[in-house]
């Protein structure tokens, strides 16, 4: 095993909140995967306990959730652990209030995702899922040649497949196996995209091969190919070679990667080719390999994983609900680590009541947009004592990852003091829809996560961690501490 203690981005080297862990404190017996997980879990428990001691010390109503397999379950009873890429029916509330999140409708359950710290670079969806025939179809016949998956594995941390090609080609071109359409990714003019993989002839007569290559397809949605850039010149002498193709978009709005093989026509073919470490990224060169097992499961050697709940907005609505929470106060704080993936519609991250617009004593934190108005693509906060106010921040277009802090105090008299929104630890200047939110306390409602009442305003994005607390205002130090805690749960850099 590699010496993971020497991985500079590992959490051992980032002690927080007086957790004094240094390399010399560790026994080498911990340098294996299960030990890493145990210690990470232990650190998480200590950090979480610190937050609980700080902001839930007096049994304040609310909930604290961190998304990970440890706290997510596939059934509404909370007994069967959820799996990465599978759905989540129950998320445990760690605040001690018992306000666990649930979702009874199977298709509406969020998906548990995993990605490395630093985020996703490899967009070759499923390329590391080498035994999944959706991503690596087999058998398939094209242009007179049958392609059969004969072996899979992992070498040097990079996943590989071996396809055997047999037949007499009617046209030279054939595919190296990967389901290219599943790597289709939105892109913009001027961006450079690079596809790469290690290609090798491992058995059979290589003389039947003209060339093997990686290809980048520039397209306009949904499927019009504007141009292809090929990385040719891979030798077929039995050595492994890295094939790379890069293309800078000139007119398209999406890209995908493919791998192909050209045969010399007219003669029988029987050859086996290995494809290893397929990667597709927005970059000019190949970067460190990420194993992409599917749309919600990407890992990278030497990088810690972060977990999230995915909801697909109106197109794929997924959401959860808590039991009724009785606040008994006019003050509340919401902290969220989130990534929005779309600006196409207003998306509720967390709301109290079925409609914070219309029901007294309620709040909402949301990704906001007004259709057709790019200036309203932002994050927003809603508060209603007896009057509805909505405040939107400056422009933050999707995709965008933030630590959101919404601080509510209905007792104040002006909207700017009643509803404060901080993004990545910075207080925002908001444009409010009304001068103030009226009066009264927060009232008893369930909280909806990822939707309004489960019927509309579905959030399109990822939720990493979410805290809602009804209780006295927090100090600046407490707020910053919770924000750092939330930031530690998020994959992309925030604070």
């Amino acid at each position, binding site marked *: 095993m590699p010496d993971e203690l020497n991985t500079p981005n590992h959490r051992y080297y980032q002690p927080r909140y007086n957790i004094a862990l240094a390399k010399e404190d560790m026994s080498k017996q911990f340098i294996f995967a299960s030990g890493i997980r145990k210690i990470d879990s232990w650190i998480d428990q200590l950090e979480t306990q610190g937050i609980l001691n700080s902001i839930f010390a007096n049994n304040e109503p609310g909930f604290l959730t961190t998304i990970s397999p440890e706290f997510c379950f596939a059934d509404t009873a909370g007994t069967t652990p959820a799996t990465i890429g599978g*759905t989540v029916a129950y998320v445990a509330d760690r605040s001690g209030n018992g306000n666990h999140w649930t979702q009874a409708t199977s298709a509406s359950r969020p998906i548990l995702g995993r990605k490395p710290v630093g985020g996703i670079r490899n967009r070759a969806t499923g390329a590391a899922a080498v035994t999944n025939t959706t991503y690596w179809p087999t058998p398939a016949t094209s242009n007179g040649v049958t392609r059969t998956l004969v072996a899979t594995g992992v070498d040097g941390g990079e996943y590989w497949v071996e396809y055997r090609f047999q037949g007499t080609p009617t046209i030279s071109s054939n595919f190296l196996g990967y389901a290219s359409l599943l790597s289709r990714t*939105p892109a913009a003019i001027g961006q450079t995209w690079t596809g790469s993989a290690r290609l090798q002839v491992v058995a059979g007569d290589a003389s039947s091969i003209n060339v093997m290559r990686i290809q980048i397809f520039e397209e306009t949605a949904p499927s019009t190919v504007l141009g292809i850039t090929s990385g040719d010149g891979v030798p077929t002498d039995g050595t492994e070679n890295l094939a790379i193709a890069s293309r800078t978009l000139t007119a398209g709005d999406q890209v995908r990667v493919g791998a192909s093989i050209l045969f010399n026509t007219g003669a029988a073919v029987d050859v086996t080719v290995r494809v290893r470490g397929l990667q597709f990224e927005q970059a000019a060169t190949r970067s460190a390999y990420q194993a992409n097992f599917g*749309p919600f499961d990407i890992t990278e050697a030497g990088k810690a994983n972060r977990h999230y709940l995915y909801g697909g907005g109106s197109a794929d609505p997924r959401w959860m609900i808590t039991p009724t929470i009785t606040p008994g106060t006019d003050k509340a704080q919401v902290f969220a680590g989130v990534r929005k993936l779309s600006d196409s519609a207003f998306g509720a991250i967390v709301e109290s009541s079925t409609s914070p617009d219309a029901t007294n004593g309620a709040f909402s934190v949301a990704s906001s947009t007004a259709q057709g108005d790019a200036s309203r693509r932002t994050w927003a906060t809603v508060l209603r004592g007896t009057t509805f106010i909505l405040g939107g921040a400056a422009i933050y277009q999707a995709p965008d990852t933030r630590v959101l802090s919404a601080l509510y105090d209905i007792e104040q008299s002006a909207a700017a003091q009643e509803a404060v929104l901080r993004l990545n630890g910075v207080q925002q200047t908001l444009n409010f*829809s009304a001068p103030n939110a009226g009066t009264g306390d927060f009232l008893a409602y369930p909280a909806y996560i990822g939707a309004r009442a489960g019927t509309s305003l579905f959030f399109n994005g990822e939720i990493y961690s979410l805290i809602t607390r009804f209780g006295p205002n927090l100090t600046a130090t407490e707020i910053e501490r919770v924000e750092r805690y939330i930031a530690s749960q998020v994959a992309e850099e925030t604070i």
Partner: protein
Amino acid sequence: MHFVPICVPEPLTDAANHLIAALGESPADLLTWGHLPFTKDGTLYGTRWLLCPDNAEEALAQPILRPEWDTEELLDMALVAQAQAALLFPAEDETPMPAPDKIVFWCGGPSIDAAIDAWGLELVPQEEGLA
């Protein structure tokens, strides 16, 4: 298992809900398609991107029996059969297009966002949000 983009037209919403509940685990699955946010050629559509077994097309071609959870016979098996008859699977390399009388089940399809682009569905303007 893989994710499949699914598109249900308004006239077949009940049938689609009974079908997925027949394959599901509780009456709550009858609520799967209650939200129809898209429109095309005057018909409303709801979509989903669901994790399905690799043999989904083959399995959905077989008769579906009343599930064990449905002891109170909440499911209308005639609606289940109606939904099965309306299923549209893609021919090889083709994009199965939405229609008022079809439930599109795009095995091997792309992400749901890419599927919506390919289907030409447009989001119905919503009332909520920043005014």
